[in-house]
């Protein structure tokens, strides 16, 4: 009993030596198939920062693939996050803790919480506070890179994000002048960013799709070259 307990660390070490150095799946956190065209690596590359603008739903949808695959995700600084929508999009709530910052925490407390979570979970969804110092963003980006997690920001600006996804134009269907109800929304997502993401892209999606989740809509425009940043 005692001996076997002592052997556990040794076993874990040999397991680390025996397995492949870096699997492809370990460099990229998977996303829903529908969202793959938006991302240069076909998923959320570990160590990168993804800035989502204009839609909380899209940010939640980005987490859905990872969460369904068994990864842990966490949200920081979203007192108004619609968890029901997250669940409908495919985020597993048992692995999706919310950090509600007290009013006194400030930008430093926010950065501390994000850095702490980046150590443990695969994807951190965070809303940057209004006045975030450049030093905080640089330090957090370095931390995320070092810890091989992914930071998804939404509802605030993040200069220097690796991938930038903006929702332009949303059109709800199913609702009319006093009849029906909201059923599905067609959005167009414009991708941009740095490095491989700089070539950009434009994808039309049903977000949410009629039965829940995300579905591809007919592509209206071929990938366009985004303005160089």
């Amino acid at each position, binding site marked *: 009993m005692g001996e076997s307990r002592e052997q*556990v660390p040794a*076993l*874990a070490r040999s*397991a*680390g030596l025996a*397995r492949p150095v870096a699997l492809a799946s370990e460099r990229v956190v998977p996303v829903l198939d529908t969202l793959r065209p938006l991302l240069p690596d076909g998923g959320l590359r570990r160590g990168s920062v993804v800035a989502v603008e*204009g*839609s*909380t*739903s899209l940010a*939640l949808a980005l987490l859905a693939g990872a969460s369904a695959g*068994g990864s*842990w995700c*966490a949200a920081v600084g979203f*007192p*108004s*996050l*619609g*968890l*029901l*929508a*997250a*669940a*409908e999009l495919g985020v597993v*709530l*048992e692995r*999706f*803790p*919310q*950090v*509600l*910052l*007290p009013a006194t*925490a400030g930008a430093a*407390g926010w950065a*501390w*919480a994000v850095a*702490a*979570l980046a*150590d*443990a*979970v695969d994807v951190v969804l965070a809303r940057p506070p209004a006045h975030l110092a450049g030093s905080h963003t640089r330090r957090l980006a370095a931390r995320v890179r070092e810890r091989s997690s992914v930071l998804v920001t939404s509802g605030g600006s993040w200069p220097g994000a690796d991938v930038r996804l903006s929702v332009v*134009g*949303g*059109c*709800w269907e199913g*609702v*009319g*002048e*006093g*009849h*029906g*109800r*909201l*059923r*599905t*929304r067609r959005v167009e997502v414009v991708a941009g960013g740095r490095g491989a993401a700089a070539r950009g892209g434009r994808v039309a999606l049903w977000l*949410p799709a009629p039965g*829940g989740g995300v579905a591809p809509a007919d592509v209206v425009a071929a990938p366009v070259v985004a303005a160089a940043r």
Partner: protein
Amino acid sequence: MGAPRTLALWCPDWPVVAAGNGGGQAGAVGPVAVVDRGVVLACSAAARAAGVERGQRRRQAQARCPHLVVVDHDPGRDARAFEPVVAAVEAFTPTVEIVRPGVCAVPTRGPSRYFGGDEALAAKIAGAAGAIAPGCRTGIAEGRFAAVLAARGGLVVPPGQTAAFLAPLPTTTLEEGTLEEGTLGEGFADLVGLLGRLGVRTLGELAALPPRAVLARFASPGTLAHRLARGLDDRPPAARRPPPDLAVETLLDPPVERAEAVAFAARGLADELTGALAARGLAADRVAIEVETEWGERRCRLWRLEGAGAAALAQRARWQLEAWLTDGGLGPLTRVRLAPDEVRPDRGRQQGFWGGDRMVDDRVAAVLARIQGRWGVEAVVSGVPAGGRGPAEQLRLVPWGGPPVSPESGPGRERPPWPGRVPPPAPATVHPHPVPAEVTDAAGGPVGVSGRGLPTTAPARVSVSGGPWAEVVAWAGPWPLDERWWDPPAHRRRARWQLVTAAGDTHLIALEGGRWWAEALYD
């Protein structure tokens, strides 16, 4: 907050009685003195008549009474001799707390009612115990301290009169009355002397001082004395046989201010505690981490462990101590204590062979616990399915790591119907508190809901939170709700609408009592 009514049993000169029982010496008849480190601790009535007093030097006592039989003090002997007396009291009530050998206390609430009142209970217990320890007395008052003082006079203090009973007693009773050995130590004797020099001579005068001033001037012993003088107890009587007391603690002398040093001590404690639990086949579900500062300030926080091991406990202790010492502004610590609050049988834990999910879960749990240590348990929450109609009601936010909540509806169960539920898809942004809004028709007039649940006119423009007016291009609803009509204070009548503006913003808006509230945003 008053202390619970307590009965105290007091056996005078217990060390002398115990010496007579156990040592086979002269018994209680002749002059006997029990001496501890050359000083008389207790003496028999015959010795007292000959001029022997507590606190005398041994040689001085022998000079006054040449026939004096001197017995060395042995606390173990006192305790052993007291056991039959406690057993006699235990025949009346199972919750007996031994204050010290010679004095025990029981809460009287239940037994008094059963045996026909405080006086009857006091007489019965005195009779039963007196058969074993002649001369013992009982007294009843609020709180153990007052009860012991009442027992000296064999009194039953009427309910609510404890403070009045204590007020005329001199402050020296603090020292020589109940607490001569054990908990308080030498600081208390110094305190009584100091109080006398400052002109505070009775317990009533001490009780009249403001508590904060007493704490500031006399630190921890002063606060304790002040509590006792006011008729509050230092601690409630506890059961005599608690579940195995496995709490571990360490005293830090000199007091330690650096978190690392305290954490080092806590690590040892964690190993000790988990070892003691494991020896009984237990694992801690919840552990109380308690500290006491040099200034008598105490902090305690409960940590849920869910059976995790010594390393996890040591980590939590370190984070908690760091949080207190660096952010909490707590002074130098004199004591660290880990007490298992809830235990469960240890069923062991299985880790994935390749260091799988289990380890990730542990790491996440550790980080979340750290965040909770900094900002409180409410800082990390998770959503649990719950019943309700609105987007905020269908999921309940519960603190992370709390006891598992049985979901009212979940994937495993059939979701109960909630007629009038806001239909899916759910909004991605739900305002924690509804935001005031305004809605008008095309002419700028009010929009309402008729008695039959139909809109009076079509909404045409909307402004949320005093923002600019936006044109409504599509809308759905109203869905009238009449909730909790059976409970007048909680009764709500609302009508929900979905409004899509020209700019693409889509709101979930409720009309209640003639006012509009934006509840959520489909973004």
